[in-house]
C-alpha cells in the first residue's frame, strides 16, 4: 500500500513540479525512486494570456542566462491584479519605445497583515525567455563563463515580433552585460513603503506594513521551484540593489527569512 501511495505521489510530482500546476495537491513529501526523500512544495502558478504590444522591441535569451531573482513590490494596492499591472506597463512606454508587457516574470498576490484578501496567488507575467525590464536600464553586471559562452554563441537576440532577431552589442560592455539579461523579476503586488509625498498609498509610519509569513513563504517556494528547474539561479536580490528606489519597501528586511525558508525546501540562495 505504501509503495502504491509513493508511486502515485511520484507520478503526481513528475507531472506537477516546475510546471504550471493548476490543480496540484498541497505539498506532500515525495520519495523519489533513486534518491532521498525531500520535501516538494508545489507552487500553483496561474498562466494567463497577457496582452502584448506588437510594436515593442524585446530581447530573447536562454533561461540558462539567468542567475538572479530580483524582488520588487508594485507600490499599488495589494488587490490589483496582474492584468492591471500589465495594462499599466503597456501604457507606460512611449510611442518611440513601447513596453512589450509587464516587466516582471511573476506576480504574487498576497494579503497584507491583518487582512484576508486578496487570495494568495502566483501569476506568470513575462515569459522567462523574454528579457525583463526591472533591474535598471543601463546597469551592467559581470557575466560568468557560461553566460559569456551563451552570449558568444549569439543566443541572446533582440527584435520585434514577426521581424528578424539579432545580437545587439549595445547590451554588453566587455565582460559585463545589462542586469536585466541575467535576472528575472518577481513582484509582490502591494505597497510596502511608508506614506510620503511621493507615495500617497503607503503605510502609516505608526503601523509599518511588513510582508506576512505567507508572502515570504510564497516568495521562497517560487524561488526554490525556479532554482530546481534552472540550477543556475543562485541569487536573490532586490530592486534597490540595482537602482536608487524605495522598492521593495519593507520586504528588503525579510530577504534573510525568505532565503531561510527556501533552505527548508532544499534550495540555497546567495
Amino acid at each position, binding site marked *: 500500500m505504501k509503495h502504491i501511495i509513493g508511486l502515485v505521489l511520484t507520478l503526481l510530482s513528475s507531472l506537477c513540479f516546475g510546471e504550471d500546476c493548476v490543480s496540484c495537491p498541497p505539498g506532500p513529501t515525495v520519495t523519489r525512486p533513486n534518491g532521498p526523500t525531500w520535501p516538494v512544495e508545489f507552487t500553483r502558478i496561474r498562466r494567463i494570456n497577457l496582452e502584448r504590444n506588437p510594436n515593442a522591441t524585446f530581447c530573447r535569451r536562454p533561461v540558462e542566462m539567468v542567475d538572479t531573482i530580483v524582488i520588487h513590490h508594485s507600490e499599488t494596492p495589494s488587490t490589483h491584479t496582474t492584468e492591471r499591472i500589465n495594462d499599466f506597463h503597456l501604457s*507606460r512606454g512611449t510611442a518611440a519605445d513601447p513596453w512589450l508587457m509587464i516587466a516582471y516574470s511573476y506576480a504574487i498576490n498576497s494579503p497584507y497583515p491583518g487582512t484576508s484578501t486578496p487570495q494568495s496567488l502566483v501569476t506568470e507575467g513575462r515569459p522567462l525567455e523574454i528579457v525583463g525590464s526591472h533591474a535598471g536600464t543601463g546597469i551592467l553586471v559581470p557575466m560568468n563563463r557560461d553566460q559569456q559562452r551563451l552570449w558568444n554563441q549569439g543566443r541572446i537576440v533582440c527584435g520585434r515580433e514577426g521581424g528578424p532577431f539579432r545580437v545587439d552589442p549595445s547590451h554588453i560592455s566587455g565582460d559585463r552585460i545589462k542586469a536585466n539579461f541575467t535576472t528575472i523579476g518577481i513582484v509582490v503586488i502591494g505597497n510596502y513603503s511608508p506614506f510620503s509625498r511621493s507615495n500617497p498609498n503607503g503605510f502609516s509610519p505608526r503601523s509599518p506594513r511588513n510582508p506576512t509569513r505567507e508572502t515570504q513563504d510564497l516568495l521562497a517556494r517560487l524561488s526554490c521551484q525556479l532554482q530546481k528547474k534552472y540550477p543556475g539561479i543562485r541569487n536573490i536580490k532586490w530592486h534597490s540593489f540595482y537602482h536608487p528606489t524605495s522598492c521593495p519597501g519593507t520586504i528588503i528586511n525579510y530577504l534573510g527569512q525568505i532565503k531561510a525558508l527556501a533552505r527548508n525546501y532544499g534550495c540555497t540562495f546567495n
Partner: protein
Amino acid sequence: MHVQLTLLMVLMGMTSAIAADEKSMTELFHKYDMIMDQKKVEFIDEVFSGRFLRESGGKKQLVEKINELAPMAPKSGPEISWRKGLKGEVYFARFRERAHIKSKTTENEGSEFIVIKENGKLKIDGTISDGD
C-alpha cells in the same frame, strides 16, 4: 478661405485641449502639494479618485496619514513631468521629492503617479513603482 478658417479653428481647439491638460495637471498637483504640505485636506475629493480613496482604506485614514507628515515649506510650484499613457485614458506623472530622513536630506526620484480622468476631471489614482 472658409476651409482655412475651419482648419484654423480646429487647430486652435486642439491646442486649447492640450493646454487644458497641461493646465489641469499643474492645477491638480498644486492642490496635491497644498494637501500634503499645508494639510488642506478639503481638496482631497478634488485630487484623489474615488477608487484611490476606497483602496487606501477611506478618506479618514488618508487624512490621518496626511496629518502625520512633517510639514514642508510651500514651494513656488510643483516640479512634475508627465505624459499620456499609450493605453487608455491614463497619464503618468513623476515627481522630484526632497525627503527629510532624520537630519539627512536626500533627493528621491520617486515612482510615478497614475492620473486618470474621473467625470472629466484629472484625479490621482495611485502610484506605481518605477519599472526599471
